[in-house]
């Protein structure tokens, strides 16, 4: 990444808005590409943010995806106004999902979202309060390009 300034911004996400699913992740990916971040890092970030976006769209009323790109890492915080997760350990288990049937028929809600986010991140934190919402914070490190 050229320069040393941090780039930050946010996207508003609306629960149930499947039509615009992926728009925020796609825009973030294109920002990363323009900054010269390696395709592999941008791809991991895009998968993690898309899954995060879907979680908000499927489960919450609304949410915000905040990002900050520094020369060292990409940090993304997804904050939603949703039902909250009573048992985070259970929600992190691959295959566990509370998505309704019609969402599953679309091919979402396979219980892979949170595990996919974690798998594609270097650091992963999740906090949730039932009845208030969920916050997912991820960091993806940007490796130094050693080519001259």
């Amino acid at each position, binding site marked *: 990444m050229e320069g040393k300034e941090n780039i930050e911004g946010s996207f508003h996400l609306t629960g149930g808005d499947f039509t615009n699913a992926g728009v925020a992740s*796609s825009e973030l990916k294109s920002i990363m590409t323009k900054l010269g971040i390696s395709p592999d890092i941008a791809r991991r970030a895009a998968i993690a943010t898309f899954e995060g976006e879907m979680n908000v769209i499927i489960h919450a009323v609304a949410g915000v995806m905040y990002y900050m790109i520094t020369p060292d890492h990409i940090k993304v915080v997804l904050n939603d106004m949703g039902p909250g997760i009573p048992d985070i350990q259970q929600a992190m288990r691959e295959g566990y999902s509370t998505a309704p049937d019609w969402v599953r028929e679309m091919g979402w809600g396979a219980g892979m979202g949170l595990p*996919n986010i974690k798998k594609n991140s270097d650091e992963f934190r999740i906090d949730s309060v039932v009845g208030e919402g969920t916050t997912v914070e991820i960091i993806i490190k940007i490796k130094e390009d050693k080519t001259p």
Partner: protein
Amino acid sequence: MNIREVADSLSLDVKTARGDLGRSVTGCYISDLLSDVMANAKEGEVWITLQTHPNIVAVASLKNLAGIIITNNRTPEEETLKKAEDEHIVLAVSPLTTFDAGGRLYTLLRC
């Protein structure tokens, strides 16, 4: 092999992004679970699915897939076609079952 050769060989009905048919195909991934495709499909692969809603375009675009083949003659939604055209994602429809489309593609790419 490029997506045009795949389309010709499988007699696909190409619906979008005809200008991008020169894109090369490195393999194929078959799944109707979008998170599975996000996790396991690789760049340059063509994706065979029964899903027809617009989110498949977002997944294909983020994963940089070579294209999408919808099997069993299912009709993609209007919004799906619009998004695919906008994002230069080749989307094609086949009357073949997923098994037959995948089998033909396997023969084409691996044999």
